[in-house]
């Protein structure tokens, strides 16, 4: 054995092993590194064998965590050694030590290429392995053709070819253009006919990577994948070596099924039939057996089959068969199967309508919450969270609360957040919601974020029916001997605001309330004291008749804190003390908190943000995106939470929630809604601790303008702020509320995004979310608008009007006037493209929420490129057409300046995303791009369009563009369209680069229509 032959290395390793502690190890390593460094310095005396030995030592030291940067050069230089052992260690060390951006790699690129194109297969393997592990873009550019040749060559051994396949995969990840060559998809399909299972497995991994980005070119691979599955799963036609515990290569089966999941569906009836036969066989024929390894292997295949069945949206019968299997799995002894059973049930929730069947297993899932394995408990929690809806929320949330007391710390935060969100989302009544949150704070106060208690306060403030109940609960909790500080905060706040509603109950007189709250004061931190002071002030205000003894006590507290070192506490103390002497005016100034505006729950938002982080586009998510059925909107992360059917969402009953009318009434009573004030917070001079800003900012001073003006000027900095508030209110009367509805996210960006994609969110604000899903076929299109009411109150007077431009015929189906709370309605919109034009349709949308009208005008992404269909031409097809279309108006040429500089590849990608398919190789000049596409409209029918772009490598900001098609308008419009994409920065159309030379396109009819209704908003976006 070659390595054990290296005595020096073995000695060194045993020295390291004999070290008693880290310090000794470090000394020994330092000594060795010094030695190696010295040897490398006077390189002449080193034999290749010695070099190899030292590099191995270095690699070992590197694994132990020491820095070996000085040896990188040696490792790289060994790559060009003539003999195998040195070369080998050079390759292995380089791929362990360096990353793809390391400068030294560039030095090696030639040596690596020589090894790849050389005839020595063992060298080829080494070189491929290096490139496959750390090859970057430069490697992709210079080596891809060589690697492809190895992969396709029948003269190469399978050992080389399978490495070439995976090497190409790496290069493709670094530069997708490496497979952008004529006939590649055919070659890929041909590769799948390979008999050698090693090569086939690698080729399948390559296919998975390719189709995960773009499946369209690879339809011919579908029947091949099905064939492979038949060969393995049905015919068991594999060499003995490739059966693993009796299962024919589970890895290949899994990969083949994974590849199929990237195709939206399988239309070819015979493939579909064969596939389902295989899937059925896998689903039925897998049993739990004794041998763990066999079990794992057969279930690896089974779980992948389940995923594929879910994806293909099989008949209901097969789906329920899947759920039944999963139901069986989550109860078996084998923990891995239980784990994956739960995980797959959660995935299943995401993609299909099987809620009801899964609910039958609720008891078992709850049992899994007590599993000894934290991994399984986590999966069970995820599943319960996902399957929760109004019908089972009470049971599930109560289970979670119960579990909270015994759960380990690692899970408590997640657990409490999830319980809080479910309680809020699916509360059958609000008093239950309050109960849950208070229990949550009581049981796991340390893990309850401020967001959670802020939210409960918002609900209580906005619902009068709830206030006495919440106050009573708060009073009860305060009686407990040791309560969490968060509980002190929320109880004190609620009792301050609503404690007076309990006045007639025993033990709830102002004096008693004060003393029970005040008892907690010595134990709380500085962030809580301001809340307590505020509630004392409120108790004082509500006190009737005046209890002078209590007043004295409270004033004494304020006086005590008048000189507090904490500015927030001090300020409140000073202000409240000054206010106590004001007598009846106090009641006006310290009036009850007005209602909070409906806003998105910070909790839900937080959970959503967390979901977005998971970037990887797994097949299952892709599936969720492709399936429009009942997802709120595709881009909306809500589906992660199980995509409950719309019907059940609409069922959420929040009886004591304000209806529209009584909200109006309360608005009259309280001239300023809470929102106006909290917007002011940022301008106020009052320093308030960040985390409390949301709730506490407005609390300090509050009152109708008149009274506030009475307060002595200069008595406290608060007075100044008060007058600010007054100003702001005067400027913003209630009628102008719509202006205060701020869209979430940039409308322009969302539109741009939808111009490229076919589904996503078009518009969102705190009340409504408008999503779009579209399908395009030739000159017809069908869009579905998803109007989702995000609130617990209905949206009224909903009106959607389409303002189509002359070139589009659009028909919107009926839009209901009211969208029920938390419900979503879908409105299909039929589109026909009449003639080529870049004009855009506008959706004029309005609704009424809580007495305020909101009107928005949105561009609809029925844009020119939606009517383009990708098409790729060969030179023989392209040039005759190009020549036949000669000169204007069918062929137009223009020099475009002010182009956003970008590498050619990026420009090619940009073209491809707009369905202008770049055909590489047609133009001999590498600085030019040639692209073609087919445009569809009623007047032109299918029309071939050819594009040539000549760029100037010296000046990336200008290019010459030639467009040709059989229709003059089309040629012109397409030219302008492409120009717009090249000169403007799509994400931010309002700020085109100043150097933009071409004249803006002439204003057209729809622009005027839009401009008439809302000039500012629309015009800016239209360009």
């Amino acid at each position, binding site marked *: 054995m070659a*390595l054990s032959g290296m005595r020096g290395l073995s000695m060194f390793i045993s020295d390291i092993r004999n070290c008693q502690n880290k310090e000794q190890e470090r000394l020994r390593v330092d000594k060795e590194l010094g030695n190696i460094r010295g040897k490398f310095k006077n390189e002449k005396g080193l034999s290749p064998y010695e070099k190899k030995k030292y590099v191995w030592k270095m690699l070992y030291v590197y694994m132990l965590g020491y820095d070996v940067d000085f040896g990188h050069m040696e490792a790289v230089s060994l790559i060009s050694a003539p003999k*195998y052992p040195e070369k080998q260690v050079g390759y292995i060390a380089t791929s362990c030590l360096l990353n793809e951006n390391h400068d030294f790699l560039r030095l090696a690129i030639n040596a690596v290429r020589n090894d790849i194109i050389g*005839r020595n297969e063992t060298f080829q393997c080494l070189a491929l392995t290096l490139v496959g592990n750390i090859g970057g873009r430069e490697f992709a550019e210079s080596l891809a053709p060589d690697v492809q040749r190895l992969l396709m060559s029948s003269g190469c051994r399978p050992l080389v070819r399978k490495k070439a396949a*995976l090497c190409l*995969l790496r290069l493709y990840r670094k530069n997708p253009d490496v497979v952008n060559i004529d006939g590649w998809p055919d070659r890929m399909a041909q590769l799948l006919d390979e008999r050698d299972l090693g090569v086939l*497995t690698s080729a399948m991994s390559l296919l998975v990577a390719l189709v995960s980005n773009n499946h369209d070119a690879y339809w011919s691979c579908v029947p091949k994948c099905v064939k492979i599955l038949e060969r393995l799963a049905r015919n068991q036609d594999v060499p003995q070596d490739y059966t693993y515990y009796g299962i024919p290569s589970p890895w290949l089966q899994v*990969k083949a099924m994974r590849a199929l999941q990237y195709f939206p569906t399988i239309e070819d009836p015979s493939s579909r039939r064969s596939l389902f036969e295989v899937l059925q066989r896998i689903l039925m024929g897998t049993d739990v057996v004794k041998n763990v390894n066999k079990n794992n292997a057969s279930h690896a295949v089974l779980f992948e089959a389940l995923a594929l069945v879910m994806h293909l949206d099989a008949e209901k019968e097969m789906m329920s068969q899947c759920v039944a299997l999963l139901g069986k799995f989550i109860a078996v002894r084998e923990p891995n199967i*239980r784990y994956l059973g739960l995980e797959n049930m959660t995935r299943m929730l995401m993609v299909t309508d099987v809620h009801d069947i899964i609910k039958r297993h609720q008891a078992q899932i709850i049992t899994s919450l007590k599993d000894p394995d934290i991994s*399984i408990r986590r999966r069970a929690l995820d599943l319960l969270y996902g399957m929760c809806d109004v019908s089972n929320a009470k049971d599930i949330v109560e289970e979670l609360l119960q579990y909270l007391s015994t759960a380990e710390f690692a899970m408590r935060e997640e657990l409490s957040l999830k319980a809080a969100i479910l309680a809020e989302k699916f509360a059958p009544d609000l008093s239950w919601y309050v109960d849950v949150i208070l229990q949550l704070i009581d049981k796991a106060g340390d893990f309850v974020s401020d967001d959670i208690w802020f939210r409960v306060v918002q609900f209580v403030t906005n619902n009068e029916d709830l206030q006495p109940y919440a106050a009573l609960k708060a009073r009860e909790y305060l009686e407990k001997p040791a309560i969490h500080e968060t509980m002190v905060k929320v109880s004190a706040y609620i009792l301050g605001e609503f404690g007076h509603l309990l006045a007639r109950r025993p033990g709830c007189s102002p004096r008693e309330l004060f003393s029970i709250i005040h008892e907690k004061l010595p134990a709380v931190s500085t962030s809580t004291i301001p809340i307590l002071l505020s509630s004392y002030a409120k108790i004082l205000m509500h006190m009737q008749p005046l209890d002078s003894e209590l007043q004295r006590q409270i004033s004494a507290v304020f006086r005590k804190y008048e000189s507090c070192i904490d500015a927030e506490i001090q300020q409140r103390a000073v202000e409240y003390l000054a206010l106590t002497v004001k007598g009846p005016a106090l009641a006006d100034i310290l009036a009850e908190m007005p209602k909070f505006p409906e806003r998105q729950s910070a909790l839900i938002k937080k959970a959503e943000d967390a979901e977005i982080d998971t970037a990887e586009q797994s097949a299952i998510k892709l599936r969720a995106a492709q399936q429009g059925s009942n997802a709120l909107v595709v881009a909306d992360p809500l589906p992660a939470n199980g995509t409950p059917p719309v019907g059940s969402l609409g069922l959420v009953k929040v009886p004591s929630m304000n209806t529209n009318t009584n909200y109006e009434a309360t608005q009259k009573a309280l001239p300023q809604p809470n929102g106006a004030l909290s917007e002011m917070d940022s301008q106020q001079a009052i320093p308030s601790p960040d985390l409390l800003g949301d709730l506490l900012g407005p609390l300090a001073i509050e009152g109708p303008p008149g009274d506030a003006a009475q307060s002595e000027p200069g008595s406290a900095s608060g007075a100044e702020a008060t007058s600010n508030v007054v100003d702001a209110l005067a400027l913003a009367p209630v009628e102008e509320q719509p202006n205060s509805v701020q869209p979430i996210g940039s409308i322009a960006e969302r539109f741009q995004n939808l111009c490229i994609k076919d589904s996503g969110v078009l518009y969102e604000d705190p009340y409504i979310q408008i999503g779009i899903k579209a399908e395009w076929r030739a000159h017809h299109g069908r869009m579905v608008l998803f109007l989702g009411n995000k609130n617990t109150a209905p949206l009224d007077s909903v009106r959607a009007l389409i303002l189509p431009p002359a070139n589009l015929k659009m028909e919107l189906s009926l839009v209901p006037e009211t969208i029920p709370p938390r419900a979503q309605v879908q409105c299909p919109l039929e589109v026909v493209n009449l003639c080529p034009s870049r004009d855009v349709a506008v959706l004029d949308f309005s609704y009424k929420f809580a007495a305020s009208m909101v009107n928005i005008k949105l561009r609809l992404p029925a844009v020119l490129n939606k009517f383009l269909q990708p098409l790729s031409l060969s030179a023989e097809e392209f040039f005759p057409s190009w020549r036949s279309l000669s000169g204007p108006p069918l062929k137009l040429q223009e020099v475009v300046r002010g182009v956003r500089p970008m590498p050619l590849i990026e420009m090619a990608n940009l073209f491809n995303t707009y369905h202008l398919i770049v055909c590489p190789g047609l133009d001999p000049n590498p600085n030019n791009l040639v692209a073609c596409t087919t445009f569809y409209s009623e007047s032109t029918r299918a029309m071939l369009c050819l594009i040539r772009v000549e760029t100037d490598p010296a000046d990336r900001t200008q290019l010459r563009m030639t467009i040709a098609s059989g229709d003059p308008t089309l040629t012109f419009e397409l030219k302008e369209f492409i120009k717009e994409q090249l000169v403007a920065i799509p994400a931010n159309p309002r700020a085109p680069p100043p150097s933009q030379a071409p004249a803006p396109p002439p204003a057209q009819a729809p622009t005027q229509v839009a401009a008439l209704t809302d000039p500012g908003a629309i015009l800016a976006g239209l360009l």
Partner: protein
Amino acid sequence: MIKAVIMMNTQGKPRLTKFYDFQPPEKQQELVRTLYSVLCTRPEGVSNFVDVASIFGPDSRLVYKHYATLYFVFVYDSAENELAMLDLIQVFVETLDKCFKNVCELDIVFNYGKLHTIIDEIIFGGQVLETNSAEIMRAVEEISRLEAASSTISLVPKSVSNWRSR
């Protein structure tokens, strides 16, 4: 994609670390340490999967197997099938076993280089390369022969000498 292969002993000492998406050396050490603290608390008879999104970032999964004094750990993303990864660990272990005739930790410590050769024949750039342990053995033995042949006498393989003389 497989993001990392880590072997460590039950004291937390790394025996093989291979990261397929590059991590700087300090980060590698930190990951090994964190991983050890998670693995050593896992009791017997639980599943082989651990949530590691907090350690390796979003979309990371981990499967491990515990043999005698060693942990074998694969970190991978959602593009891989969980149980297939577990099977691959088994293939790796069985290959080691064939290679060293009843493998033990010492074999692995002193044949650090061979370990690299073996793992490179199983996983390639984070993808499954070969799953047939007989085939893996053949490739590894071929490499061993080459190493042995040229370290005794400087014998350039025939194909190379042909090529070089061109």
